């Protein structure tokens, strides 16, 4: 009998307890073990260099100086070197790596916190259950080479991530790495680790907390400021880590309080709350945080970690909203009340003696938060607390605006606040109502106004009519894509008959409001792309409706199938999106995945038409999620705020020698069309990004039918949104069979007249012109060892 992990007591030896931890090997080692189990920084460097050679890093410094050590500040403008010898390029690469590492640390520290908590509650032997999947933890298997069976099997996975983070972070110290390319390889390593950390986090919570397990028809829940019943006491939870919040939901359920309390979530905690108990409601994404606090509606706020504004306690205190902090990452200087009685804490908070409390005892949080909300609501009502100005005050405020424009210059979105003030002073609120959705709720404007106008409050007051209508539906996070779905859809995806998977993920830092993200999703869904979403933008997609009042989640089913819309869940559920491509490689193509990152990434890059869109990316986590996708061969597009991450990975279609791949059948080298064209790029507007998404779904392995479908969408989207046939459409044509059926003759004529291709008009066939011909058994690869000749 194998000794299992856990605790046991030896009879007759009282008070002696032996813990069996890492003596037993963790997880089941799958055979054969791949070439890079638990890779060190340098183990996947060759793969990274291949990517970086084709997709060259392009830097756009936010700051031209390095302020990192006391030799400096150093002026690096024009790629000069600093006093330590680092040049601008390497410094920018280091910055990108550091930002990415911050994101990786946030997700994996979240995972560690959750795992410690869940092991305490359920035991390390608690089995992993993610739904109908044999391949339960694709990223863990591909990276670590082990197949976890219990939540305790993730302990060495987190150990590995934490060790790697330390190694990577050390390289950022002055006097270490000097090569921008190696910093990039390290950034890619951090990105990969991030996906691993996210996978651990979501799998353990799915397994232990009864969250949907690959559930395509997961229930719909309400979302939006307008959907929250403010006549009840409102308990608001903000953040990403649902550990403490589950205790609140249990208490509310057990004490039949769901009728008496409105339990609402903001940011990713909200997704996970609804995955745990669908009676919870979602206020909305990050951009609603300050707005909703300022509305004065919440009676108690509970915060955990990540994407919680640094000013929550300050803002909440002004409105007598007590704040309960529950996690080491955010303590706001509050006293630790973990050892105190719940009633005593409630007393101090109700009386206003303390603005909030820090509590690590989650059983106490579970009782305290709802009981406190019930007590605070009548008190706050009696105090007449309203944050927003009344009608008279609103008039005064808008008329006091001197049209100086300071707020516009201070606003990261450059919104025309001055014009809206002028119109509102004249009684016209429409400009503010339009501005409301484009405003990311950051509150910068307040600090700029020389007249002291609380501008964000004015925007919110002016927009009450539209806020009341902010009611939508979100399908709760379904978790992984199950193995049966992969078996059914894999062939379409690899052959290209499903034109692509568009993963719309990330934060709400949109250039032009949330409607764009809804419209992008709708356009791609109508075209039979699979749209996968998560995090804040999954919420915003559910905020908009069609003429019949239906959201996209009500109109499109949630299976991993063409034309379906899948919400995987919170930010950590992003791991399931990247994992889906690994599942296709493993289940559909029977690739060996254990400890075999390079081969799988090579497969994804060359065969799976998946593209990520982080249209409103703001956080470091969003950068690292994108970078992890990149290392796995998935291109990512960012919105126009994206270049502030300082680095992109861009391909140059005109550099023909960069577009060579091998044919695994014989190791021969083929020059291919530039697909996918970029790994990380940004776009300015919705109209620009739509054709780009279609184009980035091209893969060298597309068969004729698949390429024809993909090219049809690329051309149609370009014509619809950019008003022209794309300039580069012909580059992707390998034979007449690649051409959209309805336009075949017309396009053949263009190929002849404009590109000088030779056409046999009797057979309507391309005779000469394309970069290469299609060969259905072509096996594109960038990894020499996968070629038959090489393995002989």
């Amino acid at each position, binding site marked *: 009998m194998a000794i299992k992990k856990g605790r046991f007591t030896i009879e007759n030896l009282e008070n002696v307890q032996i813990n069996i931890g890492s003596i037993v090997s963790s997880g089941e080692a799958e055979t054969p073990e791949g070439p890079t189990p638990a890779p060190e920084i340098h183990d996947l460097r060759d793969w990274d260099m291949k990517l970086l050679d084709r997709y*060259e890093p*392009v*830097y*756009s*410094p*936010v*700051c*031209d*100086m390095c302020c990192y050590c006391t030799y400096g500040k150093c*002026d*690096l*403008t*024009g*790629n000069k070197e600093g006093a330590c010898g680092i040049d*601008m*390029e390497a410094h920018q690469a280091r910055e990108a790596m550091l930002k990415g590492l911050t994101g990786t640390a946030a997700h994996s520290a979240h995972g560690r916190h959750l795992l410690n908590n869940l092991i305490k509650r359920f035991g390390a032997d608690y089995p992993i259950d993610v739904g109908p999947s044999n391949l339960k933890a694709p990223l863990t298997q591909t990276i670590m080479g082990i197949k976890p069976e219990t939540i305790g099997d993730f302990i060495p996975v987190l150990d590995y991530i934490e060790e790697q983070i330390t190694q990577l972070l050390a390289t950022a110290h002055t006097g270490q790495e000097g090569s921008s390319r190696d910093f990039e390889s390290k950034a890619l390593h951090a990105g990969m680790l991030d996906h691993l950390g996210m996978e651990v986090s979501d799998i353990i919570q799915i397994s232990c907390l009864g969250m949907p397990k690959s559930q395509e028809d997961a229930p719909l829940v309400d979302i939006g400021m307008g959907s929250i019943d403010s006549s009840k006491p409102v308990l608001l939870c903000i953040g990403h880590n649902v550990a403490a919040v589950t205790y609140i939901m249990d208490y509310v359920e057990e004490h039949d309080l769901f009728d008496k309390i409105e339990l609402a979530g903001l940011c990713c905690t909200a997704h996970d709350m609804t995955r745990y108990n669908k009676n919870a409601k979602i206020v909305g994404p990050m951009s609603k945080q300050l707005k909703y606090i300022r509305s004065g509606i919440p009676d108690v706020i509970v915060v955990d970690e990540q994407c919680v504004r640094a000013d929550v306690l300050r803002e909440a205190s002004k409105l007598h909203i007590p704040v309960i902090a529950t996690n080491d990452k955010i303590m706001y200087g509050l006293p630790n009340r973990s050892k105190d009685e719940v009633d005593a804490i409630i007393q101090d908070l109700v009386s206003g003696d303390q603005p909030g409390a820090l509590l690590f005892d989650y059983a106490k949080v579970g009782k305290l938060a709802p009981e406190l909300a019930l007590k605070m609501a009548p008190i706050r009502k009696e105090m007449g607390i309203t944050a927003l100005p009344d009608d008279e005050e609103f008039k005064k405020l808008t008329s006091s605006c001197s049209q100086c*424009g300071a707020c516009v*210059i*201070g606003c*990261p979105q*450059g919104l025309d606040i001055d014009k809206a003030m002028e119109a509102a002073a004249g009684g016209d609120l429409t400009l503010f109502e339009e501005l409301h959705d484009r405003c990311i709720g950051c509150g910068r404007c307040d600090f*700029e106004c020389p007249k002291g106008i609380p501008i964000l409050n004015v925007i919110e007051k002016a927009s009450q009519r539209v806020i009341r209508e902010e009611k939508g539906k979100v399908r709760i996070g379904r978790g992984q894509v199950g193995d049966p779905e992969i078996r059914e859809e894999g062939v379409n995806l690899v052959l290209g008959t499903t034109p692509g998977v568009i993963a719309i993920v990330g934060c709400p830092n949109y*250039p032009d409001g949330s409607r764009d993200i809804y419209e992008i999703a709708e356009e791609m869904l109508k075209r039979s792309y699979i749209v996968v979403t998560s995090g804040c933008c999954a919420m915003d997609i559910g905020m908009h409706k069609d003429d019949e009042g239906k959201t996209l989640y009500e109109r499109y089913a949630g299976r991993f199938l063409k034309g379906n819309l899948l919400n995987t869940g919170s930010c950590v559920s992003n791991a399931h999106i990247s994992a889906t491509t690994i599942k296709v490689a493993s289940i559909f193509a029977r690739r060996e995945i254990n400890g075999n990152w390079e081969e799988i990434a090579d497969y994804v890059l060359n065969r799976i038409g998946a593209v990520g869109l982080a249209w409103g990316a703001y956080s470091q986590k969003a950068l690292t999620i994108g970078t992890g996708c990149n290392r796995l061969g998935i291109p990512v597009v960012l919105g*126009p*705020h994206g*270049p*502030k991450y300082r680095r*992109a990975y*861009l391909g*140059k279609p*005109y*550099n023909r020698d960069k577009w060579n791949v091998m044919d695994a059948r014989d190791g021969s080298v083929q020059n291919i069309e530039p697909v996918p064209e*970029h790994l990380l*790029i*940004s*776009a*300015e*507007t919705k*109209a*620009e990004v739509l054709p*780009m998404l279609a184009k980035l779904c091209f893969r060298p392995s597309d068969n004729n039918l698949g390429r024809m479908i993909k090219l049809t969408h690329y051309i149609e989207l370009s014509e619809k*949104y*950019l*008003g*022209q046939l*794309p*300039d580069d459409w012909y580059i992707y044509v390998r034979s007449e069979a690649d051409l959209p059926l309805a336009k075949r003759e017309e396009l053949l004529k263009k190929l002849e007249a404009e590109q000088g291709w030779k056409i046999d008009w009797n057979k309507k066939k391309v005779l000469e012109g394309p970069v290469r011909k299609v060969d259905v058994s072509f096996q594109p690869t960038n990894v020499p060892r996968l070629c038959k000749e090489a393995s002989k």
Partner: protein
Amino acid sequence: MAAIELDTTKNAVPFDRANIPGPKMAKAIKADLAGKLISKARRPLLIVGTAGADDGVILVVKRMAEKGIPVAATGNSIKRLKEEGIDATYVNLHALVSYLKDPGWKGFDGKGGYDTTIFLGHTYYYASQLMSTLKNFTKIKIISIDRHYHPNAQQSFGNLKPDDFLKTLDMVVAEL
């Protein structure tokens, strides 16, 4: 004449208040000087963002194109530019700066790279970051004739009121 009195060098602070890149920031210039600098360029490229297709501004793009300045249409400006009969090439701005950075790039006409870029009609923060790429990694001149002060350009106007902006653009074109 009011137009001549228009001082485009005033209010030369980054439009995003904290967008201060470092020791080297754009020189605020008068409209006629911008026109002269553009007309002196050997291989200029006018880079037009989505707002370059706005009423008023698009007429200026048209006149510059008629003067023989090649036009790169970024964002989704190409749609309206084409409707107006302006000869322009669509390109993504992020991709374009990476091409400009490459000494091997032959330009849109195959005749070689460009020595001067002229920015007009962009989402402010987006263009600012991509000018930063050109500023730090190329020797290409960056002239912003946009409405707001761009610290990462070499020459830029200060922040202009909409009406003054259109008048300024007229003055730029008059010098070509």
